[in-house]
């Protein structure tokens, strides 16, 4: 029976649910990262890296000859875990320092930020970049605004964006990454950019493998299936706004169709809607970054508008800018900065309409 005892969903409960929603993505990330690593090694064993990730993978016994589930899991753990731990330590240290200086209890939100940030990175990211991005996320993304709930951008989004713009092409020293596109997003997307569907077929990427996430890319964003599971949980528990999510996907369909109809013969302009959804990190960003309740519009009309803005920007950057084949991170950043402006306009219209009816 209604609200009196159905009190505020506590911060802790929301936090736990958000972590839970990221679990399918995390598991998919483990297997896919391991799989991609071992696949590259199987083709070219000389690429085996000597850094700590490669050594852990070897130490855990991940074999690239006929790799099984256990091998993939071991290789995935060897890549994801060091990055995650490093991000957690970086975030935790900053949080501790800030909590001490402000004489306030430490906030736990950095755990979620670290997890999101890690899942948006490629398995081959340089450790120094992890520390840099995570520091930026906590300090500039969160602390200077006063902490959790007072930010206007998703801190993880800001962290990943700063890594992308600071080191645009430098993640190529590792077999997992092979110098395709730097941090700027999805290799699968870059493949399409260069050779269309034929290039995807040549790289063994089909609809099914893209759906379950068996494609190269940032660790957590490749599996559409896992993202959908997380989205389902967040929608059922009403942590994210369904309007914003639907607006993004519907907007993507509209703008992709427009570009398809405009007669592009090749390249991303001719890419159909299902590939837009399956490749790259659009859905991951749409669910876990764009729908951050604090950093998105707070009025319902504003949410619809913001969703369409995100979709328009994603499609536009994807089509027009081949150096940013995935486009999701810059699009989300721009849309997130615009959110207060959109709200302002929506509220102004509402006020004007009210004042006309006033007695």
């Amino acid at each position: 029976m209604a609200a009196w005892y159905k009190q505020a969903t506590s911060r802790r409960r929301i936090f736990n649910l958000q972590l839970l929603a990221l679990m399918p993505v995390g598991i998919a990330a483990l297997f896919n990262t391991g799989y991609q690593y071992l696949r590259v090694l199987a083709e070219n064993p000389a690429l085996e890296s000597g850094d700590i990730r490669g050594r852990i993978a070897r130490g855990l016994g991940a074999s690239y000859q006929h790799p099984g589930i256990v091998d993939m899991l071991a290789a995935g753990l060897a890549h994801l875990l060091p990055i995650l731990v490093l991000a957690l330590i970086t975030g935790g240290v900053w949080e501790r320092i800030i909590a001490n200086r402000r004489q306030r209890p430490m906030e736990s939100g950095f755990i979620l930020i670290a997890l999101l940030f890690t899942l948006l990175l490629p398995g081959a990211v340089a450790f120094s970049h992890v520390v840099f991005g995570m520091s930026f996320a906590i300090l500039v993304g969160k602390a200077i605004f006063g902490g959790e709930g007072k930010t206007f951008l998703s801190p993880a989004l800001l962290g990943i964006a700063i890594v992308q713009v600071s080191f645009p092409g430098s993640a190529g020293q590792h077999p997992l990454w092979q110098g395709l596109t730097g941090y700027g997003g999805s290799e699968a997307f870059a493949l399409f950019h260069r050779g269309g569907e034929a290039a995807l077929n040549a790289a063994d990427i089909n609809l099914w493998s893209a759906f379950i996430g068996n494609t190269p890319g940032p660790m957590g964003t490749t599996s559409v299936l896992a993202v959908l599971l997380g989205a389902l949980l967040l929608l059922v528990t009403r942590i994210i706004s369904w309007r914003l999510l639907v607006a993004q996907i519907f907007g993507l369909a509209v703008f992709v169709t427009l570009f398809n109809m405009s007669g592009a013969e090749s390249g991303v302009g001719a890419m159909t809607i299902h590939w837009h959804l399956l490749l790259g990190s659009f859905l991951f960003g749409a669910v876990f970054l764009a729908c951050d309740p604090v950093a998105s519009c707070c009025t319902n009309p504003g949410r619809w508008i913001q969703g369409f803005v995100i979709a328009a920007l994603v499609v536009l950057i994807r089509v027009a800018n081949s150096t940013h084949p995935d486009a999701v991170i810059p699009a989300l950043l721009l849309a997130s900065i615009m959110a207060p402006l959109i709200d302002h306009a929506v509220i102004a219209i509402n006020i004007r309409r009210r004042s006309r009816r006033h007695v």
Partner: protein
Amino acid sequence: MPGSIGLETSKVSRIALSGRDFRGVNFELLCQPGDEVQAGAVLMRDARRPAIQFVAPVAGSIASIERGARRKLISLQIDVDESAGVVRYQPPETQERDSLREFMLASGAWSSLRTRPFGNIPHPDAEPAAILVTALDAEPLAPEPQPVIEAFSEEFHAAVNALAGISAAPLYVCQAPGQALTPGGSSKLRYVSFSKGYSAGLPGVHINALCPIGFGGGEAWHIGYQEVIALGHLLLHGSPWLQRIVSIGGNAVKNPRSLCVYPGSAVSELLADELHDGPIAILSGSTVYGRKLAEGEAFLAAGQRQITVQRDVVGEARAETGVLVPGDALEELAPPGIYAVPLLRALQVGDAERARELGALELVEEDLAPLSLACQSGCDYGVLLRAVLDQLESLR
């Protein structure tokens, strides 16, 4: 005629008029403890607007007059003794504005009108932009208005026509869909139906939809259906209506049902032998818009239609972060047409101007009660709203 609508009657031995039900009134007492009073006898009036009078809801003797800080009236308690009799009021001979108003003021019925903005008793000479009769109740476990109105339909319609006569403004009867209150009488009468959610019965929602209030000085008046019936009783029979229909419900109540009680009944007497054992929380109102009864609020409020008693959840502390996290839940609990998050933010920072633009003048504390519960910031938006309203009232 207690029990005439077939409900169980619960007679308590003590009732009270509570000062907090009449905001902004500076009470001037016209009686003393120990006085014998008839039902309908004038007990108090507003010192600043002496035409506004407050009458004894039931006959008996004045038991005590409780005062708080700065001698503010907390409650005027009466030990019920029906044998003391009833004051008769001569119904007005004409349906003219002035004679109707005079009758309402003299008989105490005027004090059951409320204004928006601010939720005060209207000034005796004021002109509203609209008068709203709240003839529906959408909250969980509230008594059904329709059988009550049907049982007293003569009184109800007489009073509605009289209310239409006290001003030139339209009179809206807000009812549930399918509740066929037959239109008739004055051409100023409009019948409007509201549905959708628990908030459908809130005057704030009706006013928002029918006559949004700006800063031009306009105001809307509203009155609950039971107070309308009470006015009708005065008009038709010349004597006050000695009962109100109140429901008791909630998961700590053994036998949830509607009761016929005296206005202002002592809650503890009503709930005697009604509750399960264990820690409880008594709410004035429903689980959605109800307010936990504070210490010393032991009597039914004016216009209150339900008491909810819930098992208290011990040990589950509220997460109070001080931070407003927007979400669909806030939007759904806000009165329709009002943007919850911008309004709550304006209230948090005390931005009276923005809050007014976003519709704060149409609201009072009860409208924001569910938002205070749903928001994890732990803010009591009712208190913040009142602070903003006080600021706006002083500017008006």
